[in-house]
């Protein structure tokens, strides 16, 4: 018995959870774009307050967000270090042999790290409060305009949905096959790289065969219920924008306005 959580959805009943997934996707993208427009620390404070408010409303425990950050911890450190050493600048803070650390470098590093952290928290909130299925629906909707140039938006979304649906099934299947082969003396843990790779054959072949068998069964089941793809298809759960969605967008637009206003103010007063 394997319990797998797909994605990282945190089930709860919050305002953010109830938002239309399309709006959440749009807001997340806008947020990510506009944090790169921030030029000064006032703007970062505004964005941080906005994020903090969202996290509070979503009722997702902060440790779930930290988990996402931990995964990219090294990327943050790496970019920060690169920025510290490779930003040209006038005000030298520290001279280390051929390297010099400048004030500009430190500021840039801090800025980049803050942006990355906010970007991750922002997108984590999206995946934490939206089920994978909702998310694919939103992506399908976002891809709709591309249908004009023959991008099979519906089919892509359907494939993603099916793939997500089968992750736990195949995990369970893998567990079973692994045990069956272990009962025949298979050893997946010891030996060198080549031996280990070879030992996966008895695991992967049955797994692929079972995946194909399931795919065939599913295709038959879908066709026997007259699935023909996108055309003329209606939804069981229609996505509908409500007042709260526009309210959420409004709050984000306020933040964007604040960012530009603060950029202007900072420009006038020379605040970095």
């Amino acid at each position, binding site marked *: 018995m394997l319990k797998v959580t797909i994605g990282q959805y945190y089930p709860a009943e919050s305002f953010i959870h109830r938002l239309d997934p399309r709006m959440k996707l749009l807001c997340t993208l806008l947020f990510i774009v506009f944090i790169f427009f921030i030029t000064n620390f006032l703007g970062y404070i505004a964005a941080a307050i906005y994020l903090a408010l969202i996290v509070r409303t979503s009722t997702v425990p902060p440790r779930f967000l930290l988990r996402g950050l931990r995964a990219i911890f090294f990327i943050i450190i790496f970019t920060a270090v690169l920025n510290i050493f490779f930003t040209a600048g006038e005000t030298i803070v520290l001279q280390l042999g051929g390297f010099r650390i400048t004030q500009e470098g430190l500021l840039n590093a801090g800025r980049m790290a803050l942006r990355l952290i906010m970007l991750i928290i922002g997108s984590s909130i999206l995946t934490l409060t939206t089920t994978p299925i909702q998310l694919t629906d939103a992506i399908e909707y976002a891809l709709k305009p591309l249908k004009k140039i023959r991008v099979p938006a519906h089919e892509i979304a359907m494939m993603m949905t099916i793939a997500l649906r089968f992750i736990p099934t195949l995990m369970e299947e893998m567990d*079973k096959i692994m*045990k069956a082969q*272990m009962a*025949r*003396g298979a050893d997946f843990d010891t030996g060198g790289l080549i031996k280990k790779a070879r030992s996966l054959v008895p695991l992967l*072949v049955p797994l692929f*065969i*079972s995946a194909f068998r399931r795919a065939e069964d599913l295709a038959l089941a879908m066709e026997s219920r007259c699935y023909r793809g996108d055309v003329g298809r209606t939804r069981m759960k229609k996505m509908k924008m409500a007042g709260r969605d526009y309210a959420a967008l409004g709050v984000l637009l306020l933040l964007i306005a604040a960012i530009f206003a603060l950029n202007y103010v900072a420009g006038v007063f020379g605040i970095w």
Partner: protein
Amino acid sequence: MAIEIKDLCHTYSRGSAFAKKALNQVNLTIDSGSFVGLIGHTGSGKSTLVQHLNVLLRPESGQILIDGEDINADKARLKAIRTKVGLVFQYPEHQLFDMTVYKDVSFGPKNAGLEEDEIKERVEAALTLVGIAPELWEKSPFELSGGQKRRVAIAGVLAMRPEILVLDEPAAGLDPRGRNEILDQIKQMHETLKITVILVSHSMEDIARLVERILVISHGEIVLSGAPAEIFAQIEALEALGLSSTQTAYIMRDLQAKGMSLPDNIFTVEDAVAAILRALK
């Protein structure tokens, strides 16, 4: 070879919100050379119990002794124990992977590190035992019929020459003929190879016909244990556990209620036919 299980407990996903107690204080002895049936409905802990027998799962607490040896004591003995206890999973044909039937069956003996001649001898013996004709040996296992695939998969375990053979629903999903063939072969193996066989099933008919002793498991505990006659006589107890006695037992009970004088403790079709004929004479 005797199996002795002492106070065995197992909990899945221990310590998390999904924790589920699957086995609770299981105590049980299975004599060497016996043919035991393990009955229980879905989720009763049958599969969990049998997976402990060759250390695919480790006990949370308690002990499993096979021939007096604690099988969880020494990791270095793992391979030897898995050779000793052969486990055939549900739908074993789903584990087939190799290019030919022969190669697939030789997977187990190869892992055991045997000599080429020994492997050959064992594979051929195992395939013959399950009734797979030599002309199929070099075919791809995926070309075979469902029943043949299953028999090849069982041969894959038999080729390890286990002293204890555990089969989890070996007849599930087969047509009546394939079912009887497989079950009869298992019975025959038990008799000719003198191995201990543990048959997990929820088909009362199959179990009644084959085994010497029945264990009934429910909610992770062994609730009934005894000879088939004793177990199947307890219709009410079985029904309370969500199981049932054999169809024959129900017919015999109804006939008795209609005033026919029949002996108790008849659970198989063959015995029932004889008893009814006698009563009608």
